[in-house]
């Protein structure tokens, strides 16, 4: 099973590809993706991503980033518009969970 950290790195990598030349299509989309990359780099290698609980939310973000990249590659901008909202929401979940509020390890 891929670790949460590996999944986060894959997500960052997909987002970087998505971001390339995206501004020419839509500046707002490009800015959102860049923000995700920036925030994910900030939380990369933190304790959460060494733990198993990081897997489900990070995997969701990783898969959605891959789907978004496919939409960009195929030029399916109608799908892209829907899927970028989904990715933003998932990215916010990852960032929130990375704080591990209330975590008890026994």
């Amino acid at each position, binding site marked *: *099973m891929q*670790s949460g950290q590996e999944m986060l790195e894959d997500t960052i990598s997909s987002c970087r590809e998505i971001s390339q030349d995206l501004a020419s299509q839509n500046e707002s989309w490009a800015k959102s993706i860049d923000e995700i990359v920036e925030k994910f780099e900030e939380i990369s290698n*933190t*304790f*959460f991503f*060494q*733990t*198993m*609980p990081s*897997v*489900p939310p990070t*995997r969701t973000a990783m898969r959605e980033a891959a789907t978004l990249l496919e939409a960009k590659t195929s030029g399916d901008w109608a799908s892209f518009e829907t899927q970028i909202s989904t990715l933003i929401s998932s990215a916010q979940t990852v960032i929130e969970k*990375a*704080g*591990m*509020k*209330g*975590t*008890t*390890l*026994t």
Partner: protein
Amino acid sequence: MTQLGWNANLPVRTISKFTLIEVLGGNMSESKVYYMDAHSESTETALSSKMITVFDAAGLDEMIKPNDIVAIKVHCGEWNNSAYLRPLYARTLADRIKELGGRPFVCDTTTSTYSPWGSRSSEIDILQTAERNGYSSATLGCPFICADGIIGPSDFVVDIPEGYILKEAYVAQAIAAAAALIALTHFKGHSMGVIGGALKNLGIGAQSKRGKFNVHMGGHPSYGLGAAGVFHPENFKGKANTPDWEILEDCCPFNLYHINEKDELEWDGDKCANCLGCFGVMGPRGLMDIPPIQFDAVDAAIADACLGVEKAVGRGKVGYINMALDVSPACDCAGHADVPIVPHLGVFASTDAVAIDMACVDKAREAEGIKGSKAELMEAHHVGDKKFEAAAATFHSQSEVTSINTGHEIGLGSRNYELIECEPESPERFRFPYDKRPSRQRFGAKFEKFQPFPYDKFDGKGFNRLDVVDLDKVKHHYEDDSEVVNVEQPTSSEN
């Protein structure tokens, strides 16, 4: 008949009994685990009835002699946990032990201060938490005690030269003093142990507080947090930028974290006892790298410490019951309980802690994970998946068989087992014990004297009700069909 009305002449069992002599005879190549599934459709297949059936089938009844003080070790559940075993099981077992002539007590031990806000870290705490969770002498019919004293140093030290890591164990004194011990375990997951089974119930749960520091690798030169953890004071942003900075100091009951006059975070790691209290505070803030190897070492040490308990009580005087129900991903020491990861697996009994845990792990692997549970979230819900490693462990590298394999290596028990399915016993044995007569014998005269049905009203029908109503109307699923049939309401037969 016995005091509680159980018939001592038990029906002939359909399975052969595994005697203690076989266990102690040295042939540990294959142990026997007695099992009943979790389905229930009658008195004799009630889970509490099944627990007694496998208890007797495994020969655990033969461990109890008249006047024996018998410890029943349970996990009474952390404050707000809701997956721990219902007190019904401990009560039923205590009644059975009394029937055998023993004097049972039910117990748990003080915990390590593994959370800054733990609810079982002292005897007073544990008794109050246990009572809230339904464990008290009133409900159990026998004492509920904290087995290691008010703060937790009351223990009996036993040497374990066979140990894989540990060479001594600090067994809670009340447990070490018992003539026999039954580990009544809720089998579930555990973030550090990966599984929380029989081995952990005794390997952690039957250790005194200092015994827990021993098992948790406190002060260990290779695996302790002081040695293996990497402290990152550079990530502390100062009091002004850390609104809840006080918890950084307050999470450690040994007073090892300090923010000095230069507004720097300091840690006296050499004195770390591995109480675990700082893990959830320091780890997520990037102030400490929690070492996965410590978790692996603890998992191995759990089996050592379990062996220590068997040696303290007496080998052959410890029996195990695993209730694999409400198989939550986290232990009952968490102050919450998530959706179970697999359906109820069943009821197990054995004289072998290693075999019984292996049998439960195997059953979990054979089962489909529950939809919506952590097993599915981790995509480890398929038949054959190692569900505890995915859904319960903290780190990727942890194994759900570390404690089991260690127990096998050191001669505590065997991971090779024969699973023996038990047949239900007669329902007569498990009926309400205080009066086993059928209803007419019990209530006929009482009902004549205190008639509960008003035969004298409404032409003998007793109550004011409509004679006929349209029941189909209220059975109808209106979301399936918007058409509503209006039916004229019938009138009452009598007003």
